[in-house]
C-alpha cells in the first residue's frame, strides 16, 4: 500500500481536555494512519488551514465542551471554502443523541462517544474513503 491515509486530529474550542484526542491519535497511528495532531484550542480557521497544508483525507474533531453544534458547521464551512469538501469529517466526544443526527446531516461521517473502540472508527474511515477495510 503506497498511498497513506492522513488524518488530522484537532481540538476546537476552549476546553483543554486532550487526553481523549491523544488516545485516538495514537490508536489511529497504530492502525497504520499518518496522524497529524494539532493540539488544543484550535479555531475552525486553524483546523481548516492545517487540513489544507497537510492535505489530509480525514479531519477528526474532539469536542468535550458541548459547543459541537457551533464549532462543527464552522469547520465544515471553512473546509469547503478552501476546496476541501471531499475531506471526511469525524466528531468525537460527549455528544447528546439528539445532536448526532444533526451532525450527520451536516456531512459528518461518524460521531463517536466515549468508549468507542478503534476498529469502529477505522471502519468508518475506510468506508467513507471508499476503500476496502484492512
Amino acid at each position: 500500500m503506497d498511498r497513506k491515509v492522513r488524518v488530522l486530529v484537532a481540538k476546537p474550542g476552549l476546553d483543554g481536555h486532550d487526553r481523549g484526542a491523544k488516545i485516538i491519535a495514537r490508536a489511529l497511528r497504530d492502525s497504520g494512519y499518518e496522524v497529524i495532531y494539532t493540539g488544543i484550542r484550535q479555531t475552525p480557521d486553524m483546523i481548516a488551514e492545517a487540513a489544507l497544508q497537510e492535505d489530509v483525507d480525514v479531519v477528526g474533531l474532539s469536542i468535550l465542551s458541548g459547543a459541537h453544534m457551533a464549532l462543527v458547521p464552522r469547520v465544515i464551512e471553512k473546509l469547503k471554502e478552501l476546496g476541501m469538501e471531499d475531506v471526511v469529517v469525524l466528531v468525537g466526544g460527549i455528544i447528546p443523541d439528539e445532536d448526532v443526527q444533526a451532525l450527520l446531516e451536516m456531512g459528518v461521517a461518524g460521531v463517536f462517544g466515549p468508549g468507542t473502540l478503534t476498529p469502529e472508527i477505522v471502519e468508518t474511515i475506510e468506508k467513507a474513503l471508499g476503500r476496502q477495510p484492512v
Partner: protein
Amino acid sequence: MTDIDLNTVEGLTTALEKGNRRALARVISHIENNTDLAMPLLAALYPRSGKAHIIGVTGAPGTGKSTLVNALAGVYRQQGLTVGIIAIDPTSPFSGGALLGDRVRMRDLAGDPGVFIRSMATRGSLGGLAQATADVIMVLDAAGFDRIIIETVGVGQSEVEIASAAYTTVVVEAPGLGDEVQAIKAGILEIADIFAVNKADREGVDRTVMALKMMLNLGAPEKFQIMHHGRMLPVHLPDLEHLPEGWTPPVLKTIATSGEGTEALFDAIENHRLYLEQSGGRILRDRLRAATELRMILRDYLLEELLARTDANVLEALVEAVARRELDPYTAVRQLVHENND
C-alpha cells in the same frame, strides 16, 4: 479556486505559481505518494527552484526543536521573509502509521499566509527519505518561499542525510539530557554549522555550551575544565590561533519558549548564508548535492529497471540459494545483472 484543475500537472504548477496553497499541498502529496504525476511535476518545477535558503534543524528528542523552529520562523516573518517548514517524524515500524505532532508547538504561525507547514513521516524508506525530503524542499522552493526549515528528529543516520539537503544546519542541544559530551554524537558535530543550546534557563547550560565549544576546539582559553568521573580536571589545549580560515560553528544559547536568543540564531543563520555565498560554499554544496542526488536516483532507477525485467521465480531461487549458503550474494548479483543484459 474551483476554476483551476488541480488534477493535472499544468493546473497544479500554474496554481502553485500563483500562490495557491491547496495546489502546493497536493503537489507535495503526489511526490510523497510517488503517483504518476510526481515525475512530471518535479520536472516542471525544478527549473523554478534554487532561490531559497534551506535550513536544517536537528537534535535529540526533547531538546525543543519544534518550539525553536516556531520562534525562529516568527523572527523571519518579522523580517518580512516567507517560511516553508517541513517537520519530519518517524513512521512506526510496526503499524506503518505515524504520529506527527510538531504543529502543536507551532500554533503561533497559524493563519499566517507567509508560512506553510508540512508534516512528513519517514515511511520507513531508508535512503528514500532523504530523496523525498529533497523533492519536497524543491517544491517549497519553487513555490517561492524565501527560507525553508526542515526539522528532523536527531536519531540515527537519517538526519545526516537530510542535513546534506540544507545549506545551514542548526544542531539543537539542551542541558540536562544526560552526559553532555556523550550526548553529542560524532556525526552531528560534523554536520553542524550552528549549535543552539536551547532551554538555556535550565541548570547546566554553561556546562553544555563549554562541552560543545571544547569538542569544536574553538579558540578557547588555555585552561579548560572538564568533568571526568565526576571530578573537575584542568586540561591544556594546543594553540588554536592559526586555524584555517573558514566557518567556525557558533554555540548560541536560546530559550525558545520566550524567544530569547532566537534573534541571535537568526543572525547566525543569515551570516552563514552570506558566508556560503561569498566563499563559494553554496555553489560547492549545490554541485556536491547534484552529484549525490544523481547517483542515488540512478541507483534506484537501475534497481527498479532490473527488477522489473527479472523473472520473480529467478530472483526467488537466487534468494533461496543465498539463504542456504549455496551461493554468495555477490555472485548472485552478478548472475542477475548478466542474465538480464545478455
